[in-house]
């Protein structure tokens, strides 16, 4: 039995498999970073879309993932900064776990207090991470960063070539989506959703709001770590500037543009943020301005993002299908 939704998912997957065929290295590279940023943004979506907290630390968690993976997989060096020469399959779980633990540590104090304190703590954390990466050059290579992270080799499947690395990333992406889907459907995930729909009611039904929010944030952070762990072998060059605060903002906007709280919203948002510059090349430096202005207009007129926009248009076209008009009123209460 194929439901309509599964058909769409299958079509999307096939499109993703076919997309890079016959394309140049650069296009494949862009597609890779789209998938990677999608994962980071989906993680952030747990925090923002479900738990309703702003995190500005996703780039810092990517940095943690990327630097951990880099230091574990780089070959040992005679002089300068070297690594341990481990396999990516070993380095990745460690990176993800590191991001998860740091997420717990950062989130705990901030989420004790009501309000937008997580935004401030994560803002500070991202800046601190940047400073540490820049200043501790014995470990991180300072402003020069780390170069030449090996791409994972699975014996029968070496991901050294760009196209192969894309399929490797796609495989990780699919597994990641399945995991996320599992999390969203688990009791935790239902608690996340309850939090999003009506946090007071969730609390009155016995959901420990703080714990669940913290958990959402930490899982989201772990997703950032995973994305970082893939960025390191993709770009094969990491430096503090790639993980500065502006990238956290970018990821936050990906989630909002795509549609916070929708499962695939961030994927669309990441697509817009990563792929749009390629289409808007001709605008040169004005790109970021156009983008920021578009985001503001989108937030004002359609706070649910592009997916929400799709919904609005669909409802306009099919006026007869009115899904519970009382829900709108309920949401305002």
């Amino acid at each position, binding site marked *: 039995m194929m439901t309509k939704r599964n058909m769409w998912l299958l079509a999307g997957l096939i499109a993703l498999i076919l997309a890079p065929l016959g394309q140049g290295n650069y296009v494949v590279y862009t597609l890779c970073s789209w998938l990677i940023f999608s994962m980071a943004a989906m993680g952030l979506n747990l925090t*923002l879309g479900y738990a*309703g907290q*702003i995190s500005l630390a996703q780039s810092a968690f990517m940095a943690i993932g990327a630097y951990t993976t880099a230091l574990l997989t780089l070959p040992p060096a005679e002089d300068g900064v070297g690594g341990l020469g481990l396999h990516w399959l070993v380095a990745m779980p460690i990176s993800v776990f590191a991001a998860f633990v740091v997420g717990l540590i950062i989130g705990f*104090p*901030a989420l*004790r*207090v*009501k*309000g*937008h*304190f997580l*935004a*401030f*703590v994560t*803002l*500070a*954390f991202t*800046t*601190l991470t940047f*400073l540490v990466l820049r*200043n501790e050059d014995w470990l991180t290579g300072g402003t020069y960063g780390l170069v030449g992270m090996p791409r994972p080799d699975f014996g029968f499947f070496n991901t050294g070539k760009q196209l192969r690395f894309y399929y490797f990333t796609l495989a990780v992406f699919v597994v990641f989506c399945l995991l996320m889907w599992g999390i969203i459907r688990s009791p935790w995930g239902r608690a996340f959703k309850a939090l999003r729909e009506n946090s007071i009611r969730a609390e009155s039904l016995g959901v420990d709001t703080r714990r669940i929010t913290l958990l959402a944030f930490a899982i989201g952070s772990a997703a950032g770590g995973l994305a970082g762990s893939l960025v390191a072998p993709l770009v094969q060059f990491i430096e503090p500037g790639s993980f500065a*605060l*502006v990238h956290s*903002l970018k990821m*936050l*906007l990906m989630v*909002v543009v795509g549609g916070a709280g929708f499962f695939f919203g961030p994927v669309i948002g990441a697509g817009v943020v990563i792929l749009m510059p390629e289409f808007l090349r001709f605008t040169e*430096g*004005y790109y*970021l*301005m156009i*983008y*920021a*202005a578009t*985001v*503001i207009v989108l*937030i*004002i007129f359609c*706070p649910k993002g592009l997916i929400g926009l799709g919904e609005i248009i669909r409802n306009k076209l099919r006026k007869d299908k009115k899904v519970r008009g009382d829900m709108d009123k309920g949401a305002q209460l």
Partner: protein
Amino acid sequence: MEQFFQVLLSGLATGSIYALAAIGFTLIWQAAQTVNFAQGEFVMLPAFFLLAGMHFLGMPFWMALIFGLLLAVFVLGFLFKRVLVDPLLKHGGLSLIIATMALAILMKESVKEFYSAEAQPFPEIVPNGSWDISGVIVSLTDISHLFISAVIVIGLQLFLNRTRTGRCMQATAQNPGVAEILGVNVKRMVLYTFLINGVLAALASFLITPVYLAKFSNGEYLGLIAFIAAIVGGFNQIRGALAGGLLIGVLDNMTATYITAEYRQAVPLLLLIAVILFRPQGLLGTSEGREA
């Protein structure tokens, strides 16, 4: 010891300017329950209004100063409220906060593209020079900064506490519903708050920019400092933001002089985390203040 006093004084002087931005931030928070993530850019922009007035419109310095101030109040106060805050407030705080982040990017990039990506020299508004008081070199600029900031803060306090409009604004900040019932024009008061924030941002901009040079990216650091000052001092009152600003200014200078220049920026951040951890209502804040 002489050096200590010099560092302390210049720390206080810079801190007093940070405090202006932080106070504006606090006022907006109280009036509209909005965290303005573009506050740093709000401080960056008026300096460019002034420069544009001088270089493109050929105004003399004092006229450009007034031009910059008025334009800042109009754009950062009136337009910001009407175009961004009003339509978004009904969607809840989260959308608005994210919109201010996008606004920060927009302002930064606009200045970079339309004015210049290079740091611009900016005229010093207050007199240069220094006094030598028994070995301690007292910079006249620092003293003037402190004095001007003090006048602004005291003036603001008097306005808020002693005038009818000011009291109405405070009532609005404390409880808009009751204020409205008592006949306060809440919408107007909120608008005034935004206008005052525009004034404070512009004044902070004119005072701080000679120190840093006018650059499109100035707002990143200034914004961060304004948040930290506001939170460290206590979110729900002006004196908190004032104390926070001064504290950060002094701490910043002391760290750079005596401990480490590399991690100078880290100290306010660590202070922020420590305050949120141990005293989330801020050093001077009271916990019964309104929650978000």
